């Protein structure tokens, strides 16, 4: 999927931080809020933004927090597994000296 232009991303970030109306509008009605603020994104850019918006708007705060918690737990379990499997590195002598 095509990247969104950097200037557009910076502009959206500034509006989302500074503009109360934009902040409220963008969560409830992405397309018309962007039109109202004069954003002219390409089709693929718009599709990328809509995709993220769908994910965010489609979840509750509790869902997002739960998802983060489950992910942190998975990372912890994986790292503990790796810690048991991997021998202490002798990498330094090989890599550096």
């Amino acid at each position, binding site marked *: 999927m095509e990247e969104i232009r950097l200037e557009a991303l910076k502009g959206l970030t500034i509006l989302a931080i500074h503009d109360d109306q934009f902040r409220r509008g963008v969560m409830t009605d992405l397309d018309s809020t962007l039109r109202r603020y004069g954003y002219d994104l390409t089709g693929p850019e718009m599709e990328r933004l809509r995709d993220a918006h769908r994910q965010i708007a489609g979840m509750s705060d509790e869902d997002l927090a739960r998802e*983060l918690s489950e992910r942190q737990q998975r990372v912890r379990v994986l790292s503990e597994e790796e810690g048991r499997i991997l021998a202490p590195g002798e990498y*330094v002598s090989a890599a*550096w000296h």
Partner: protein
Amino acid sequence: MSERATSVFAFLDELIVALPVPSNHRELLQVHFRQTDSWQRPETAAVQLPLLVHEAITGDEKPALPVAAACTLLYLGADLFDSLLDQELLPSWHARGAAEANLAAATLLAALPQLSIARLQEKGTPPAKLWALARLFADTLLTMSAGQYEDLLSPNLENVSLEDSRAMVERKSGSAGALLARAGAVLASEEPFTIEAYAAFGSCFGIARQLVNDVWGIWGEDTSQDLLNGKRTLPIVHALSTLRGEQRERLQKLLAAARESAEHHDEIRAFLAATGSVRYTALIVWLYQQQARNHLAAASPQEPSGRELRMLLDQASLLPQPKQAQPSG
């Protein structure tokens, strides 16, 4: 991933063992990283970024090992100071106390990164580049200190705006992320455009990661240390900016009470959820993540390091990860 962390921590061990100090002082300096479980090690940033960025430019990560070690020392020192400030010292420090932890943090942060960078001399790195790296660490530490000071003051401020909160994260964590990427790039390249592209990538990555951590700081455990410490992180500032009248006053009262006990932490979480503060933070994280992606693309990283950097970036998100993480971009 773990192999890199193991290599950097082995380098650090060797660096400290060679220090011309009494053995009990060496032991003090080793406490913070020896007792850290592997899963808590800063594998995804301080260790990884300098090595990956160097490899993305030159095709080889090994020459950047002292730089990655210096970045890791800076991270560990800052982390130890954070733990002291937030009264979250890990158990291995309990017998030693805050004074010893303070001394270790100051040494990890201020002295050891320079000594690690000095190891680059052994490989013929020119003095001008060594000085550039040393100056980079000093500049970053100063900016991080300013952000940390704002963080310290924020619980007692009447009004913190979303911009105040964002700027604080940028100074505290954006500058650290920029250092991790820039340090690897400075060692690898003389090209200003490339160095700045990686630094901008690191800054946006650092901000996105910090915002994810801020959500974790409230929802991660039943008793939120961030709420006990009165932190004004983005989700909280968003809720305060969104609520009006009695509801806002109620949340402010709850935040004050939350500093005394965990009794009201669930109620605060309910307030934040009702205002969509996590969804809002997820949007801001996504925007910074996309900016980082753009900066990385502009730097034209060699593969497979570029793919690994994109995978690291994919983790700095509040949105569900693909079941089988595929490199994106």
